[in-house]
């Protein structure tokens, strides 16, 4: 089975999972005394129905694409980065620190410096589970989960004590210097240039995975670690490098949230973006193009659900339920297939 290829059969099962989850969501709406056609109608127009809706949807894809790619690149080599949330927070703080401390730099220099610092901060945090996994065989999932909490508490400490806002920003850090703020691409909406930078990063990662020997090596290590070792690849080094790239991407996602949207560090900056990104990567089996498409879909669900709630009174949280269902169905995909195969065989046998 090829882990990374999206073939026809796979696309079929992903479509079936989404449809099934949407149907179940519709049934929940009916039980709720609401009309699912109206509900989903409002959701679709809310996500795609106007220029503003589209802009909002695309704004929300930025952290999903970045954290999705981050998960994919680590998982390709067989290491599971579930610590993206913590890396995102640390990166966001590092970038914000540059933004409110060095206020006099030329714009491009300041923003680039902030992005690099965010990437370093994220990568530094991802290095811990990577090195523990590679050198000491410690389960990276548990370490990542612990580090998520540590990073959130640590950044929470930073903005509550040493870097408590002095400019009147409530419950966060000081604002970054005005000139560093990413410019908006459209009035009223929040769409900003971070989406362009994200697209550039996505193209770079796509190129790295698909067109360079690194991508091939990553894949080989993930699919057959032992074989890769015999082929003379320094598998451990590759795993660490993949994890560092992964952490850097999550850090950058944090920086973009600050520079594009909030302009300061907030203790509840991320609404589980890294978890969503991770699930997106898992659903599309780490395919970079798939990650972009699925990120738009997830972002559309989030954006549209707000309008759905306003217009029909259906709680926007239904979308989280639908997302969880899609993930469950996709995760069960192979099992479902085998189950039905077994059933068919026993039928034929009888």
């Amino acid at each position, binding site marked *: 089975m090829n882990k990374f290829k999206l073939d026809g059969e796979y696309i079929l099962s992903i479509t079936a999972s989404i449809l099934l989850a949407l149907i179940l969501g519709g049934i929940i709406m009916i039980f709720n005394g609401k009309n699912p056609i109206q509900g989903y109608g409002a959701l679709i127009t809310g996500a795609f129905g106007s220029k503003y809706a589209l802009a909002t949807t695309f704004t929300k894809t930025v952290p999903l694409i970045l954290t999705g790619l981050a998960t994919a690149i680590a998982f390709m080599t067989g290491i599971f980065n579930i610590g993206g949330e913590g890396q995102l927070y640390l990166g966001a703080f590092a970038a914000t620190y540059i933004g409110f401390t060095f206020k006099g730099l030329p714009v491009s220099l300041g923003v680039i410096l902030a992005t690099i610092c965010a990437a370093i901060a994220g990568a530094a945090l991802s290095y811990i589970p990577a090195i523990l996994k590679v050198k000491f065989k410690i389960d990276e999932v548990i370490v990542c*989960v612990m580090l998520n909490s540590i990073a959130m508490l640590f950044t929470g400490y930073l903005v509550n004590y040493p870097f408590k806002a002095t400019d009147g920003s409530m419950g966060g850090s000081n604002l970054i210097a005005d000139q560093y703020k990413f410019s908006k691409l459209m009035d009223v909406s929040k769409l900003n240039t971070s989406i362009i930078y994200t697209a550039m990063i996505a193209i770079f990662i796509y190129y790295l995975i698909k067109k360079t020997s690194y991508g091939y090596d990553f894949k080989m290590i993930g699919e057959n670690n032992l074989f890769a070792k015999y082929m003379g690849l320094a598998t451990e080094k590759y795993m660490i490098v993949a994890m560092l790239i992964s952490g850097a991407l999550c850090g950058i996602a944090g920086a973009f949230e600050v520079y594009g949207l909030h302009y300061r560090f907030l203790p509840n900056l991320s609404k589980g973006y890294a978890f969503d990104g991770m699930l997106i990567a898992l659903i599309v089996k780490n395919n970079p193009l798939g990650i972009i498409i699925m990120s738009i879909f997830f972002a559309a669900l989030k954006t549209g659900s707000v309008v759905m709630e306003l217009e029909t009174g259906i709680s926007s949280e239904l979308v989280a339920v639908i997302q969880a269902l899609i993930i469950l169905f996709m995760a069960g995909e192979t099992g479902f297939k085998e189950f039905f195969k077994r059933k068919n065989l026993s039928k034929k046998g009888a």
Partner: protein
Amino acid sequence: MKDIFNLSLLQNMIRTATPLILAALGGLLTMQSGILNIGMEGMILLGAFFAVVGSYFFASSAMGVGLAVISGILIGLLFGIFVIELKSDEFVIGVAINILGAGLTVFLLRTIFGVKGAFSSPDIIPLPDINIGFLAKFPVLDAIFNNHSIFVYISWILVILVYIFLFKTPMGYWLRASGESPAALETAGVSPKKMKYISSILCGILCGFAGAHLSLGYLTLFTENMSANKGFIALSVIIFGSSHPIKAFFAALLFGFFDALGIRLQSVGIPSQFTQMIPYIATIVVLFIVSQKTFQRRKSSEV
């Protein structure tokens, strides 16, 4: 110092450790059967919510616990079907259950009670506090151990019951074998699948208890995300306690102590963030030490 280290600190330790004990007992059962369950967070949250639903609509805290147990059985079964039957990735299913728990509870909060964020009402019947009469004769013990909510005492009994179940009954032995050597268990005529299902469902029930304690024993309300990472801390408790109920009990007390201490230290100006970090850092350190030990054992056996 006197204001920080006093009897009520120990009393708070016991209170804050209780949901950790309950959830950790559930999680260590699945761990023993060879499944790492990171979905406990969602399971606790669902338990907390349905406990409030049961208590509110039936005007009875017992019905609240009953509903929490039912939700625990269902979510444990769901987890089991995907992980055991459909062989899905246990991390993915765990994360999905966490998202489902967070999403579904807020959704239902909105649709059933018509509120966002939190629901509290005088019609939610809390769990009773237990007064143990003879403890009143010993002021120190009385202050620490008496007059807690009922699940505090239930959790202690459950520690012993889970210990007996795991290590003194055939089913407990099978459950552990289903994690260690499922093939051997199969040869012996016991289905490892069945054992894994039992552990998943028990984990759901125990996390349901933990949730019910949070929403009916500790406070009498439900708020969004009121599980506040307790599922993940319970995971640290399990690792810290090397999946052993008695060791996990003491690990949970330790974590509860730091939690209670953190709240205290905040009042004298030490940021609570640092004391809250201790369990997480400790877990990583413990994992490191354990791995070093096995590493050395491997080395010496090679020689």
